[in-house]
């Protein structure tokens, strides 16, 4: 199917936010969807192929959502430029205007503008099923007549009416010929005029006026209640994080067992030797230690897309706007920051919905402080090794609460830095806020599934590329130069691997940076972990597995690695991981910017190296300083 996406006339899918445009796009293009960026700007672009039953092919372009072609946001600007043929891309041959039947008047506003561009327009009257269940009846023929455009009533969710839409798209003879009467700036009187037309059109095609569904009004009374709302919100967040921690357990055990078995099989098959060691301890152990937290990533993306699909995410922005206002941001920064709890990369990409460029930059700069899922394996390893599972209030335990504290710490530091940035070099006047709150609906499982698939796949690809490369490099650095085999043989078997590491290049590098990390209480082994996780923080776990010579796949649940951690001693016999050092390590990982991919995305989104370098510098300094303070404080307190 991929080849078909490159040929045929170009159709642009245009519509206001919350019209189900992306669901329709997914429905029409299926798996031929290709994602990328519009050239020169940072607005996400998806294109796919559409093949009609009669064999004709079209290219389908999903335009960014827009309330109006009088653009306020970069997204709306792109949508207009493409439709006007000013973007350097092909000008669309046909516009499919997506309109929610449940929001007819408001969504027709954009359609009245689309009609003036001189491009044929076909209307997809989406969410027909929802309109029906709300008791809304729209006479499609009348609407068609009044609008002067072909209209297909359909539902992207259920698939009803899609055939009719395809028929309209395929019938080139019936594409309406529309004159180009577009004017670049619009007086307020013109808006009023458009709405006067809309009132007439809607009045003649439906007898009812759209109302907010009762269920939404009732739910909002509870979920956005001034007192109950925030309480429910924090309860939801706590449950999400606790479930990520507990539900992922069985799946993670299964993956661990799988990689352990693979590792053992390789060793038996190839026997002792450099190659089997590279495969078993380098490749399989390294990649396995990262892949093991795929269940957690999937769970997190599952919850986030659930919150988004159900309409609750917009309520969260509404509830949080005032709070975000204290640090100088708006409720719109909430979603990007919340997504950063899964991964800073989609979070930073989600800042594209923020109109104010200074707000947007501030959000980008603090998003990596929010605890992302890549920190989870590091946290899990350390928490399981050093924090007891003492139950608290029945449903929680000390480990879960430590994790919650780390998440809250990430949030607090992000807010603090946002406050500082917004008070200094990113000062801006309060920008107006506009949040549309869609009706609550049951999530569309296809969309949730597609979301999980996209993110799961990109995570596995990352594990297969950058993380694999680091694992192999680390293995070489740790395996060479070889320690004296005779000296090794004199050691007990359990200490041989560690002795080899000490002799190796990796050990040398670790010891070279040890003085710099001594104020934090990290020894050279932890130093290697920190260094190796500069590119991706989850590598820490795999590295520790290699450094501590856990001969098989190590992961954060690995009993042996945990035990080795607990029993690790300094040359003078004292424990490496005293409580203050554990706290310092957690603090360091909470704040440090150890993710090459994030820096890459920031470079792309800000159009240069200035901001990624700044981001890396300030986060490293912050992590170092905070870890030092925590360790000193905890030591002084006698913990």
């Amino acid at each position, binding site marked *: 199917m991929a080849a078909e996406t490159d040929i045929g006339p170009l159709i642009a899918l245009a519509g206001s936010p919350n019209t189900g445009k992306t669901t329709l796009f997914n429905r029409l293009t299926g798996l031929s969807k290709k994602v990328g960026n519009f050239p020169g700007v940072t607005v996400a672009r998806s294109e796919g192929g559409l093949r009609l039953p009669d064999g004709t092919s079209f290219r389908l372009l999903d335009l960014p959502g827009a309330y109006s072609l009088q653009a306020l946001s970069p997204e709306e600007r792109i949508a207009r430029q493409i439709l006007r043929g000013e973007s350097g891309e092909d000008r669309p041959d046909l516009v499919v205007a997506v309109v929610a039947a449940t929001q007819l008047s408001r969504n027709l506003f954009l359609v009245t503008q689309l009609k003036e561009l001189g491009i044929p327009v076909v209307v997809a009257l989406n969410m027909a099923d929802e309109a029906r269940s709300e008791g809304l009846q729209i006479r499609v023929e009348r609407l068609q007549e009044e609008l002067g455009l072909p209209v297909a009533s359909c539902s992207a969710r259920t698939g009803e009416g899609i055939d009719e839409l395809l028929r309209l798209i395929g019938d080139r003879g019936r594409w309406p010929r529309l004159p180009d009467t577009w004017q670049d700036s619009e007086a307020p009187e013109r*808006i009023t005029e458009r709405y006067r037309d809309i009132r007439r059109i809607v009045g003649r095609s439906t007898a009812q006026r759209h109302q907010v569904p009762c269920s939404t009004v009732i739910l909002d009374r509870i979920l956005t209640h001034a007192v109950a709302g925030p309480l429910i919100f924090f309860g939801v967040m706590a449950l999400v994080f606790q479930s990520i921690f507990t539900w992922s357990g069985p799946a993670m055990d299964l993956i661990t067992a799988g990689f352990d078995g693979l590792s053992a099989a390789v060793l038996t098959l190839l026997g002792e030797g450099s190659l089997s060691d590279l495969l078993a301890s380098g490749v399989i152990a390294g990649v396995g230690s990262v892949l093991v937290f795929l269940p957690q990533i999937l769970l997190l993306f599952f919850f986030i897309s659930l919150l988004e699909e159900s309409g609750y995410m917009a309520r969260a922005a509404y509830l949080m706007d005032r709070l975000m206002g204290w640090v100088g941001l708006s409720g719109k920064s909430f979603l990007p920051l919340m997504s950063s709890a899964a991964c800073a990369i989609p979070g930073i990409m989600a800042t594209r919905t923020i109109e104010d460029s200074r707000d947007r930059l501030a959000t980008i700069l603090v998003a990596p402080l929010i605890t992302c899922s890549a920190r989870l394996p590091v946290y899990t390893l350390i928490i399981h090794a050093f924090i007891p599972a003492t139950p608290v209030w029945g449903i929680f335990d000390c480990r879960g609460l430590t994790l919650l504290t780390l998440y809250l710490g990430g949030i607090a530091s992000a807010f603090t830095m946002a406050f500082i940035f917004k008070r200094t070099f990113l000062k801006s006047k309060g920008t107006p806020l506009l949040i549309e709150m869609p009706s609550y609906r049951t999530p569309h499982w296809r969309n949730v599934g597609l979301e999980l698939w996209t993110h799961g796949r990109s995570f596995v690809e990352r594990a297969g590329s950058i993380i694999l490369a680091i694992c192999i490099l680390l293995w070489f650095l740790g395996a060479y130069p070889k320690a004296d085999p005779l000296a090794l043989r004199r050691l007990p078997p359990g200490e041989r691997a560690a002795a080899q590491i000490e002799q190796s290049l990796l050990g040398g590098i670790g010891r070279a940076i040890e003085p710099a990390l001594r104020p934090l209480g990290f020894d050279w082994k932890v130093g290697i972990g920190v260094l190796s996780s500069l590119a991706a923080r989850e590598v820490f776990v795999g590295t520790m597995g290699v450094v501590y010579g856990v001969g098989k796949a190590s992961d954060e649940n690995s009993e042996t690695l945990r035990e080795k951690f607990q029993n690790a001693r300094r040359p003078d016999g004292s424990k490496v991981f005293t409580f203050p050092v554990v706290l310092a390590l957690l603090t360091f990982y909470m704040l440090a910017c150890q993710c090459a991919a994030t820096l890459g995305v920031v470079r792309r989104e800000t159009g240069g190296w200035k901001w990624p370098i700044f981001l890396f510098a300030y986060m490293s300094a912050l992590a170092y300083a905070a870890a030092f303070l925590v360790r000193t404080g905890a030591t002084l307190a006698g913990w």
Partner: protein
Amino acid sequence: MVSHGGVSETSRQSAVRATQRHLTLADIPVGGKVIIESLPDRTAFGRRLMEIGLLPGNEATVMGRAPLRDPIQVCVLGALIAIRRSDALTVHVSPLSNGR
């Protein structure tokens, strides 16, 4: 925005008269229904409010307030929109009903 009545009028009285003359969306209690009178239609944001249906002559209902009374949730043309109190202060309205 408001012409002062007399020289002797205190600023407080003038403020009271101002609110009487220009009831804004921010003054409406939850459940209150209003007709939009005017809004700053020369600003980009004012135009955006009009584009999403909050335009003079249309009905709007205040549906709720977020914690700390800000932002406010408004129902217009069957859609729920949240705007900040500071922006709602620029939307002049006349009441249809006083809510529950």
